[in-house]
């Protein structure tokens, strides 16, 4: 697993043939909609997907949430997972894999059940996010963290707490390279990751707000608009 954590995750993945990147057997007939009677689907997953389909006027709308539900069961959108979703949704596996390969959060390779997305988009980039990502990747390799997908991610919409990361959907930040060891150890030991520093944690404040560093008072009342008359 450690091979996944080296260097730029995105480039590495392209080089390694895994899962869906395996050569296709052209002799085989294309997969059709799997027979429900021949496909074993965990009862809970089946119920979940059926409930999802019922929410929409068109059952196909449930494709994204259904794949997400299957991914939670299987750890990734494996051929088996896709087969199960296809059987319940009555669509072809090819249709579902076309969807799964489009979206960043659907894993089409077994990269780990847990994930750490380190935002390295523009705003985080300006606050040294690359170094944070490298520190976390290095630390994961050193501590031998397994079953965890650590990757750079595009803007996660939390530039106020930059640089930040999403650990299994929980936003933590602002991060420093010195947080990497504790972050990785907490994931490895299944502890809370950086308690108190998650966006949704009770009483969470940005460091400058915590310091009582408030925006200054307006000097002389509200500003007078230069042109108050509507055009």
């Amino acid at each position, binding site marked *: 697993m450690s091979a996944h954590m080296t260097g730029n995750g*995105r480039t590495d993945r392209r080089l390694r043939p895994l899962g869906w990147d395996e050569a296709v057997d052209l002799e085989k007939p294309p997969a059709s909609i799997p027979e429900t009677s021949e496909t074993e689907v965990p009862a809970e997953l089946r119920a979940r997907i059926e409930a999802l389909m019922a*929410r929409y*006027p*068109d059952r*196909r*709308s*449930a*494709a*994204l*949430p259904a*794949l*997400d539900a299957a991914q939670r069961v299987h750890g990734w959108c494996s051929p088996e997972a896709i087969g199960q979703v296809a059987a319940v949704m009555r669509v072809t596996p090819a249709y579902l894999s*076309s*969807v799964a390969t*489009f*979206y*960043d*959060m*659907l894993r089409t390779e077994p990269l780990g059940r847990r994930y750490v*997305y380190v935002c*390295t*988009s*523009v*705003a985080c*980039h*300006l*606050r040294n996010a690359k170094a944070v990502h490298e520190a976390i990747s290095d630390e994961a390799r050193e501590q031998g963290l397994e079953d965890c997908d650590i990757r750079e*991610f*595009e*803007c996660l*919409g*939390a*530039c*106020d*707490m*930059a640089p930040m990361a*999403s650990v299994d*959907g*929980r*936003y933590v930040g602002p991060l420093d390279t010195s947080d990497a060891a504790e972050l990785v150890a907490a994931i490895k030991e299944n502890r809370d990751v950086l308690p108190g520093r998650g*966006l*949704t944690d009770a009483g969470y404040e*940005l460091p*400058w*707000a915590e310091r009582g*560093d408030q*925006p*200054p*008072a*307006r000097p002389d*009342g*509200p*500003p007078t*608009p*230069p*042109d*108050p*008359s*509507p*055009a």
Partner: protein
Amino acid sequence: MSETLETKVLTANFDVANLDLIHVYESTGGYRSARKAALEMTPEQVVEELEASGLRGRGGAGFSMGKKASFIPKGSMDKFLCCNADESEPGTFKDRLLMQRNPHLLVEGVIIGAIAAGANRAFIFIRGEYSAQADILDAAVEQAYAEGYLGKGVFGSQTQVELVVHRGEGAYICGEESALLDALEGKRGNPRLKPPFPANQGLYQGPTLINNVETLCNTPIIIEKGAEWYRQYGVGNSTGTKMVSVSGNVQRPGNYEIELGITAREIVHGLAGGPLPGREIKCWFPGGSSAPVLLPEDLDRPYTFESMAEAGSMLGSGAIIVVDDSVPIVGVALRLAEFYRHESCGKCVPCREGTNWTVKMLERLDRGEATPMDIEIVAGVQENIIGNCLCVLGDSMAMPIGSMIKHFRPEFERHIEQARERADRAAAVGEFSAVELAQSAHAGPGVG
């Protein structure tokens, strides 16, 4: 009460504890507007009020919300409202705050939007990364159903509004309205050819109104207090307040609600504390990473839709990203181009190839393998992307990168020269290592 540069209209009740509980929200006056819209007003009156308020879309395009709602055809067919909560524009994080702190305000806004559009089904398309916010919304929707504010006969009227929170799975392009519809239909998020516009043929081929979270959150306030009251905020055709997300090299990044029309300097220096001590602002994005960059002298302009357009940029989603003088501009351009390359859906050639070539050429520039002529080529690639695709994703890279080349050409040239010298030196002493070179290039050419 001490007057600050902030004007709290949307965020007025954010200090109230447990605002995500429906009874707490109602105790602050919540759901009064939706009830009024459902029981006392006709859909036409709701649209008129919204149009009169001058409320413009807060997602990026800035189109009049009331006008957009009035485009929805009349008739008894299924009509849809989609709330665009796929906030993925780099630098933007205002909707996240609104949904997390005051989910019922959005639910109420969706009910009002649905009444205005005559929609019987509504969806909130939220990006999958916002799982905590989606959970909060799910809970809010459930409470609203339990109270009879959603479902068949909202507030005891004849109106039906069904609301589903739909989670995306991580794709910037789904913020584009027609790609959002495809994603909601369970497909790959590829933008559609327009026309037909979503107002006529959108979700499931039905008439569809698509609005941003912040836009919909404004509607309960407009319905309650009236268009006239709302228009007292803002300047000219930029009415109301705006959530601005300030990020990058400032002392106090964060969300601030301001009255449209205060200067950008008041936002960046006043509210966000300005650059770190000893640093100066090099450039700033006034409306997310897709907006052409502006220079420090533009900070004195009023922050309005018109004024930002006049300066050659746009107010966009209201996300201000500040870049200070410690950051090499080539690095920012490269990071930006890498983002759009990754997020390009691949449907249109100019965007798919253009983003890829821009990244490759900027990397070459950064490695010292380019000549000043290559800057022309990069600029030329940007010009050939703009306006040549189904959606504006390609333009969103081309415009800021084009503007960086325009404003910082000498720095680009200096960057090439210095990277070349470094490469030559390394080759001469026989220590040529691509990794080292790349690292030294990232350290930048230094300023001044």
